[in-house]
């Protein structure tokens, strides 16, 4: 104790102990550090006792496979062509879902604790459920499918993000298409998280089944997807093998995330798997458990007729599919083919007339292909292969999807001088770089009205000449500061801001007054606005609110005959801090020659903080 006093610690005179005392912190901290991460006490507990408290809530008991009573559809499966080499079913485990949101969700706010357990939440009806949980959260007892409020109560400081099932589905489809392009031609999507890959005749290209599956797992890990892969003779068996707890080690066939079932051994594999692995309804599985049937092997030994009578035909169907007695066709994803038309020449061409002629042949073929695909082009590229191997490219962009051959040809011909034919061109290809769906469109809605002119063709033509950035429209902005009152907008599709339709009985419906136009049409505005207000010299004006009598602009003196004003405009403090107190007083003045100008004085003439009383010319009236 004397030593503690010598260190000047905070022990009270009597040597009494109190929670959180400085002298007791080191030992306690060491004790806490020794604990596994999910057992460390939350901060709110640390002030009250010096030992790590047990968690306030008991851990939820999970069943053997980590995820308790999940709604059906979270499983995966496998495909096999009977008699073929085998099927593989990589199962994207649920741990991938939080990863997906970490990459696509909102960026973390500054100061946010990135190490907080991450879960995704999904609203179903009136309930919010946990859709996915990261390994740290699962170690704390949070399982997918539990109520979010329960998870919140269980773990403080949980990082909750909204689940995005459609985004997950789209990602899975993208992954399936990528696999179909690079690994095997037949890839099918099963459920929400499983892919079937038909490996018949492709494993030798990737160094055998074992090597291929290892590479697959590594590739998926690089993409941030935790995968379970199983290879079996049938899709059902592979599905079953990927949807079992990791502890099962099927007689040395499994290794890490990969399970390779030797040919013909899948009945033995299935026999030792739990019934959950059979792609059945949750209700059927529950009933099977109540009857004491926990393994597929027990199910196989049962007579079939009573099974069908009790559970319906689906259980036998699934069993037969898994065993390979019944074929299970796959619905493979079809990777989209890029659209292109090519023309090769017997003799190289080098003259612009010849190029124009062959463009005239190619463009209708592209238009036909577009029409068959129901697409309109947004971006088209011509690649002319020169005999010395230097491709010549012309790219055109279109403001709206279009497949009119005449219009496309006109745009391409305009750029034809960019092709340097060199010694000659021996092939020309038109690639569709970006396409959008283009269906039939109404020409005009009424016969007695003239159709509104379509400006897209003009915009395309001008954009090929000067670029899209140098064409614009203006759009009113709710700002009284003149240089901010008009903003640029894209030329086509001017955004129509329609007021939200009010419900019947909304009190705002009583307000019959139309919304005020942000440009205040009643107040006269100049025809041209100087890019920057120009400072005036020799201004003679009375304070605080009289227009100037005379001023000098660009070296020329003007005598003011008539004037209107002031129109006071306050700075927009919510945009820039420098405008917090700024005031401009605008005056509309007419000089002795009949010219009309828009002047302003910075400052209201009373408080120096609003401006330094200097005068500027901002615009000129007609």
């Amino acid at each position: 104790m004397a030593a503690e006093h010598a260190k000047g610690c905070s022990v009270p005179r009597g040597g009494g102990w109190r929670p959180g005392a400085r002298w007791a912190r080191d030992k306690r901290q060491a004790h806490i550090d020794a604990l596994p991460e999910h057992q460390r006490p939350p901060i709110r507990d640390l002030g009250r006792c010096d030992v790590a408290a047990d968690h306030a809530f008991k851990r939820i008991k999970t069943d053997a496979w980590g995820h308790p009573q999940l709604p059906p559809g979270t499983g995966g499966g496998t495909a096999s062509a009977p008699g073929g080499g085998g099927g593989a079913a990589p199962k994207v485990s649920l741990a991938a879902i939080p990863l997906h949101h970490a990459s696509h969700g909102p960026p973390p706010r500054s100061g946010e604790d990135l190490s907080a357990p991450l879960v995704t939440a999904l609203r179903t009806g009136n309930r919010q459920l946990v859709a996915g949980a990261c390994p740290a959260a699962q170690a704390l007892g949070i399982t997918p499918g539990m109520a979010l409020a329960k998870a919140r109560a269980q773990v403080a400081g949980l990082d909750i993000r909204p689940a995005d099932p459609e985004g997950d589905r789209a990602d899975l489809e993208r992954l399936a298409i990528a696999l179909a392009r690079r690994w095997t031609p037949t890839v099918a999507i099963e459920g929400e998280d499983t892919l079937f890959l038909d490996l018949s005749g492709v494993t030798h290209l990737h160094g055998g089944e074992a090597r291929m599956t290892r590479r697959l797992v590594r590739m998926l890990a690089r993409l941030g997807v935790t995968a379970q892969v199983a290879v079996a003779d049938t899709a059902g068996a592979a599905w079953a093998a990927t949807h079992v707890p990791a502890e099962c080690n099927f007689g040395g066939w499994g290794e890490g995330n990969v399970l390779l079932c030797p040919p013909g051994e899948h009945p033995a594999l299935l026999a030792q798997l739990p019934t959950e692995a059979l792609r059945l309804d949750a209700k059927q599985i529950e009933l099977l458990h109540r009857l004491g049937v926990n393994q597929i092997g027990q199910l196989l030994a049962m007579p079939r007729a009573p099974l069908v009578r009790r559970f319906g035909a689906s259980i036998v169907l699934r069993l037969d599919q898994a065993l390979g007695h019944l074929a299970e066709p796959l619905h493979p994803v079809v990777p989209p083919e890029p659209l292109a038309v090519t023309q090769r020449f017997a003799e190289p061409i080098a003259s612009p007339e010849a190029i124009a002629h062959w463009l005239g042949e190619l463009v209708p073929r592209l238009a036909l292909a577009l029409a068959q695909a129901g697409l309109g082009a947004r971006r088209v590229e011509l690649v002319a292969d020169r005999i010395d191997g230097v491709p010549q490219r012309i790219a055109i962009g279109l403001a709206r999807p279009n497949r009119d051959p005449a219009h496309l040809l006109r745009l391409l011909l305009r750029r034809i001088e960019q092709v340097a034919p060199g010694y000659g061109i021996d092939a020309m290809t038109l690639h569709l770089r970006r396409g959008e769906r283009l269906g039939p469109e109404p020409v005009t809605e009424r016969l007695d009205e003239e159709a509104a002119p379509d400006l897209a063709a003009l915009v395309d033509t001008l954009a090929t000449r000067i670029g899209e950035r140098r064409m614009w429209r203006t759009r009113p902005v709710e700002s009284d500061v003149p240089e901010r009152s008009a903003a640029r907008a894209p030329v086509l599709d001017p955004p129509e801001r329609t007021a939200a339709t009010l419900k019947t009985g909304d009190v705002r419906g009583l307000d019959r007054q139309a919304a005020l136009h942000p440009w205040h049409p009643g107040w006269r505005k100049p025809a041209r606005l100087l890019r920057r207000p120009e400072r005036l010299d020799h201004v003679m004006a009375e304070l605080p609110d009289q227009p100037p009598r005379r001023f000098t602009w660009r070296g020329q003196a003007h005598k003011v005959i008539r004037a209107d004003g002031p129109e006071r405009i306050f700075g927009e403090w919510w945009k820039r801090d420098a405008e917090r107190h700024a005031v401009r007083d605008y005056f509309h003045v007419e000089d002795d020659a009949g010219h009309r100008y828009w002047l302003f004085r910075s400052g209201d003439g009373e408080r120096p903080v609003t401006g330094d009383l200097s005068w500027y010319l901002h615009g000129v009236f007609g």
Partner: protein
Amino acid sequence: METGGFKRRPVLPFGIGALDKRLGDKGLRLDALHEVAGTTPDMGDDCAATLFMAGIAARAWGPVLWVVRRHDLFAPGLSQVGLDHKRLIYAEAVDDAEALAIMEEGLRHRGLGAVIGEVKRVAMPATRRLQLAAEGGRTIALLMKRHSREGVDPLGAPSAAVTRWRVASAPSTPLPVEGIGRPRWRLSVARQRGGDSFELEVEACDATGRCDLPAKLGNRPAAAGRATRAA
């Protein structure tokens, strides 16, 4: 229909008798090129010419393409002479040749009501190209000729334009109270095909793009009827 070689051309009248009857076509031909310049290089006259063109374009029928060289047009001001921001498309050109080429594209498209361009120096062949592009359509071509630094008259060069206008701002209509009344312009037709040159002072465009003749009210007894009723 057989018209004996005479073809009826679409014309946009000003709606001012004194102005229309002195124009060769009783208005501005829609399928033709018209040149406009400020009388002096002063920016006030330049803006008067701008609003004069904007008013004509506002009374034309469809979308308007404005080929600019600088970003100084103020859309709220243009909308006050009737040229709504929804109708107006801007295109920026880096030099006169590009501005003329963009104007020609706009004229050939046939879906625009007016094409306006701002240039400094134009040769005769370029104006003839514009005139030819405009013929047969309903797109009025308005070419604003800016004053160059040398002080040469912008409308002096030969041109294929049908009419050539000079616009200058004039002192506004006097008001009985403090303030600025309706602005006035001094319009002068420097040259026109099928007519003589003349000068006229008008009141500037109103919110629908229409000009007016200044009313010569002089010293009319104000509100005489009401005065008798009060008495």
